[in-house]
C-alpha cells in the first residue's frame, strides 16, 4: 500500500534534505579554525587583517576579497587619486549639481551629518587648509592669517548641498572643493570590509586600518573578544585601558605621528576647521562605537571639541564611548576625560593631577 504524503510533508522532507546537503561540506570539513594574518598597504597606511578560517586556501580567498574591497573604497574616495569618485565631485560639483552613486552619496550624507551635529568640528572640506599648513606634502608651514583668510570662502561643509531625491552634490558657492576623506574614509572602508567578511561567513576577525581604526568581528575562539589597548599618553609606556572588543570598532586620533615642529611648537594634523588651525593641547582621543565610520569621525570630533561640548554631544549617544587625553599644562581642567566609558581609564591621571575630575 502506498501511503499518501501530503504536499507539505513532502516539501518539509525535501527542505530537510536540502539543508542536510547544504551542511554536508561544512560538517565533514569540521577542521578546527586556524588563525591567519595578512597586511596590505592602502589609504596611505598599512592595513592588517587577522582572521580565523578552516584552512589556508579559504583564508587566502577571504583576505584577497577583503583587501580588494579596501582598494575599491580607496579608488572611490581617495583625494590623492584624480580618478576617484570623490575627486570627480570635488572638480565638478561647483559647476552644477553632480549625480553620484548611492554609496558615495551615503558617505557624503554621513560626513555632513557629523559636521552638523558637531557644529563644524568635523568637516571633510578642510583639504585646502591641510595644504596651506603643509600637511599634504609633509613639509610643514605656518601660514599667515591673510593666507587663511583667502581660503575661507572656498571651504566649509555648509556649502555642500545634497539632494537625496536626485542624488546630487552641489557646492552652493560655485567653487571647486577639495574633499578630504582623511577623518572618516578609513572607518567607512572598515565597515565595508566587515560586511563583506560577514557575508562570507567569517565569524572571527580583527581588522586594523593602520592602527587608527580597529574592528573586531566576534571573538578570538574561546575568548571574550579581541584584545585592544589604549596607551596613556600622559604616562609614557603605560596603558590607560585594556579592552576586549567584540562586534564593535575603536578609532584613535593622536598627534604623535602626524605633526610638524616649528620654532619648538608642535603643530598637529588634526584641525579645528572653524579656527582654521591645528588643534592645540590635545594628545589623544579614542572612541568606541559599533560603526567604524562613526568612531572614525567621532575620534576627530572629540579631539577638536572642548571637553564640555563633547559631553553635551555624547549625552544623547549612550553607545558611544569616548576617552580624551589633554596636555595638563595647557590650562586644561581635565587632562583625562571619559564619557560613557566602561571602567575608570582616568584613574592614574586623576591621582597625579590634583584638581582634575573624572565623571
Amino acid at each position, binding site marked *: 500500500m502506498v501511503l499518501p504524503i501530503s504536499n507539505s510533508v513532502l516539501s518539509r522532507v525535501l527542505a530537510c534534505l536540502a539543508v542536510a546537503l547544504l551542511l554536508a561540506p561544512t560538517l565533514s570539513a569540521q577542521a578546527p579554525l586556524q588563525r591567519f594574518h595578512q597586511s596590505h598597504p592602502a589609504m596611505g597606511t598599512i592595513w592588517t587583517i587577522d582572521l580565523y578560517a578552516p584552512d589556508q586556501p579559504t583564508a587566502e580567498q577571504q583576505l584577497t576579497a577583503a583587501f580588494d574591497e579596501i582598494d575599491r573604497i580607496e579608488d572611490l574616495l581617495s583625494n590623492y587619486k*584624480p580618478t*576617484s*569618485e570623490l575627486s570627480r565631485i570635488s*572638480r*565638478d560639483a*561647483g559647476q552644477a549639481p553632480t549625480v553620484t552613486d*548611492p554609496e558615495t552619496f551615503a558617505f557624503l550624507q554621513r560626513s555632513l551629518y557629523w559636521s552638523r551635529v558637531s557644529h563644524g568640528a568635523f568637516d571633510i572640506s578642510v*583639504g585646502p587648509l591641510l595644504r596651506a599648513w603643509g600637511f599634504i606634502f609633509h613639509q610643514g608651514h605656518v601660514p599667515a592669517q591673510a593666507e587663511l583668510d583667502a581660503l575661507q570662502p572656498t571651504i566649509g561643509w555648509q556649502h555642500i548641498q545634497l539632494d537625496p531625491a536626485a*542624488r546630487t552634490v552641489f557646492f552652493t558657492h560655485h567653487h*571647486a572643493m577639495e574633499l578630504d576623506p582623511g577623518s572618516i574614509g578609513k572607518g567607512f572602508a572598515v565597515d565595508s570590509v566587515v560586511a563583506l567578511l560577514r557575508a562570507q561567513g567569517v565569524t572571527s576577525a580583527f581588522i586594523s586600518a593602520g592602527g587608527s581604526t580597529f574592528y573586531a568581528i566576534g571573538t578570538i575562539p574561546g575568548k571574550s573578544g579581541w584584545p585592544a589597548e589604549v596607551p596613556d599618553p600622559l604616562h609614557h609606556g603605560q596603558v590607560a585601558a585594556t579592552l576586549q572588543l567584540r562586534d564593535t570598532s575603536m578609532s584613535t586620533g593622536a598627534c604623535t605621528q602626524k605633526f610638524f615642529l616649528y620654532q619648538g611648537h608642535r603643530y598637529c594634523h588634526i584641525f579645528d576647521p572653524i579656527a582654521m588651525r591645528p588643534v592645540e593641547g590635545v594628545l589623544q582621543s579614542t572612541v568606541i562605537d559599533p560603526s567604524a565610520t562613526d568612531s572614525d569621525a567621532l575620534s576627530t570630533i572629540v579631539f577638536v571639541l572642548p571637553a564640555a561640548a563633547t559631553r553635551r554631544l555624547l549625552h544623547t549617544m549612550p553607545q558611544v564611548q569616548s576617552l580624551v587625553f589633554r596636555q595638563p599644562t595647557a590650562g586644561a581642567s581635565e587632562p583625562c576625560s571619559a564619557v560613557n566609558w566602561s571602567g575608570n581609564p582616568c584613574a592614574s591621571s586623576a591621582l597625579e593631577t590634583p584638581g582634575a575630575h573624572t565623571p
Partner: protein
Amino acid sequence: MMDRRSFMHGLSAAAIAISANAQSLTGADAEAARQIAPSHDATPLRLGIIGPGSRGKELARSFLRVPGVRITAAADVYAPRFAELNQVCGYEVASHADYRALLDRKDVDAVIVATPLGLHGEQVLAALQAEKHVYGEKTMAFTLDQSAKIVQAATATPRIFQVGHQYRYSPWIRAALARVHQGEIGDVTHIIGYWHRNNSWRRPVPQPSLERLINWRLYNQWSLGLLAELGSHHMDIANWTFGATPTAALASGSICTYHDGRETDDNVQAVLSYPGGKRFIFSSVTDNSQLGDQLWLYGTKGSLNLTLQDATFYYEPRQVTRVDPNHNGAAVTSASYQASGEMPYRGPGHSVEVTTAEDPTTAATRAFIYCCRTGTHPIADVHVGYGSALCVIQSNQARLDRREVAVPPAL
C-alpha cells in the same frame, strides 16, 4: 601622469580645461571628449543588468553617476545577487531568473551584459534583437562565429552597442596614444603587455555545487582564461596603437602553481603578429606581482609605459646627429669600454599630464548613455570589440593547438 600637487592645482581649472580641450582636439579625440564631458541631461534612461556579479555591480555604481539613469531590472541565475544589487542601487530592482524575461520588459531601454564570457554571445544577440541598446562586457564573445554575428546585428540596428573596453575612454591613455600617433616615439614596432598578479584567482564559494558558477574563470565551459580576462584589454590597446588587427597568433600556457582542479592555465604567454613585422607580446602570471598590470610601447625614438593610473614617456638616446661639415677637429684615440650602453635605463620618465584623470569605467558608462540619448556612434564600438575578440580567441586556439594560428581580418 600627474603628481599630487598638479592634481590639486588642476582641480579648479578642470572645468575650463574640458571645454578648452574639446576645442583644441581634432577628430576622434574631440569626439571622445564630447562623449565623456560631464552630463547634465537628466532624461530618464532605464537599464537592465544581466549578470549583476562583481563587474555588473561595479558598472551599476558607475551608471548611477549619470543623471537620469535608473536600474529597473536584473537577471541572474544566482539569487543572492539581487539583494547585493539592491544594496548598490539603494532601491529594489525587479529580478528575473531568466534573462529573456528582462528583455521582454518595456521599461528597459538599455541592457548591460556582464555574465561569464561563454554567455555573452547569446545574450548580446538576444538583447539587440529585442531592440535594446547594449553595453556588452569584454571579451565581446566566446567564438568568432558569435562575434561576427554581433557585428552584423549591431551594424544593422540603430541601437547602440558599446563593448566594455573602457581604456578607450581613459584620459591619460587617449592623450598618450594621440602623441604616439603623432610620432613622438617614432615607429612603434613592439608592444609588451604584462598582467602579473600573486593570487589564486579563486573566489570563495559558499557551497561546492556553486564552484563552476562562481569560479567560472577557471573552467573551459565559459572561460578563455587569462588571455580573455586580462589579455583582452591589452590586445585592444595593441590594436589601437598599431591601427590594425593581427594576422597570426602564437601562445602557450600551463598550470604551474595552482594544482587545484582548475582547467584554465595559471600563466599564459602570447605573441601576436601585426602587419609590417610588428609584434604584441603578452604575459600573465598569477604567482608573482612584481610587474603588475602595465604595457610598454617600444618605438624607434622612445618608449611609452601605460598603467591603470598613468602614462610615462621615455626617449631613446640620440643615435645619429647631423654635423657641421666644416668642423674638422682631429679624432683622439682611446681604448675605453662603456658598459652602461647596454644597461637598462633606470632614470625618470616624462609623465603625461591630463587635467581630468577620470576613472575609465565612469567615463565609458557616461559616454554610453550619451550615445544612447543622442544616437552618436560609440568610441568602443562593435569593431573594437571584434578586434580584441579576434586576438583573444585566436591566441587561445594557438595555445590549445600549440602552433601558430592565422587571425582572420577585422570586420
